[in-house]
């Protein structure tokens, strides 16, 4: 099956600029996640969607980050304006989560490496 697709793979921007990342999950997967992975750390959840609704955005810096999943399929994550500390790899993942199970595997994209200078 086709995997989770993300674009772009790399992005370099200056601080205070805006940037957007795109994710296309595996077909049929209702749950979509955006994770931020800073160098030397594990991935940290930014936002979780179930279909087109937000399930968890408790760790999303809402003053500068926004995300949407119109039509419950692909998703975009935006940063405006970017700060130096936003430099990280942004990972998108999807799963075929069912309410009765916590063991659904999450499938990850290749990630977008963002460098803010």
């Amino acid at each position: 099956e086709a995997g989770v697709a993300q674009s772009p793979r790399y992005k370099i921007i200056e601080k205070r600029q805006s940037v957007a990342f795109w994710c296309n999950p595996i077909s049929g997967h209702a749950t979509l996640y955006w994770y931020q992975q800073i160098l030397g750390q594990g991935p940290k959840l930014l936002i979780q969607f179930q279909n087109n609704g937000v399930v968890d955005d408790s760790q999303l810096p809402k003053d500068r980050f926004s995300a949407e999943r119109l039509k419950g399929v692909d998703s975009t994550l935006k940063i405006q304006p970017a700060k130096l500390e936003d430099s990280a790899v942004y990972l998108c993942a999807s799963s075929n989560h069912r309410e009765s199970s916590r063991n659904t595997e999450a499938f990850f994209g290749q990630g977008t490496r963002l460098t803010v200078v």
Partner: protein
Amino acid sequence: AQRVTQPEKLLSVFKGAPVELKCNYSYSGSPELFWYVQYSRQRLQLLLRHISRESIKGFTADLNKGETSFHLKKPFAQEEDSAMYYCALIPWGYNKLIFGAGTRLAVHP
């Protein structure tokens, strides 16, 4: 608060040696625990989950609730095991992964 701790950033062994990657968690409820792996230039992928009680690529992991640990073990390391390994948990009532910082396993010939 839920937390996953992987105390070693790097574990370096020779081919054929036993491997144990440590993982401790902090969670008051009943967690679901996983090991994810990222090989060089590949995406993060599931290695194994504790509920399956399976051995994948020779790796096993046992949940020890008393010690709140979920260490990953393999009796004889292979060079192709070299990768980043992340321990993760899903808290009860959620379906989000909480990751540790990861351990890089380097297996030398």
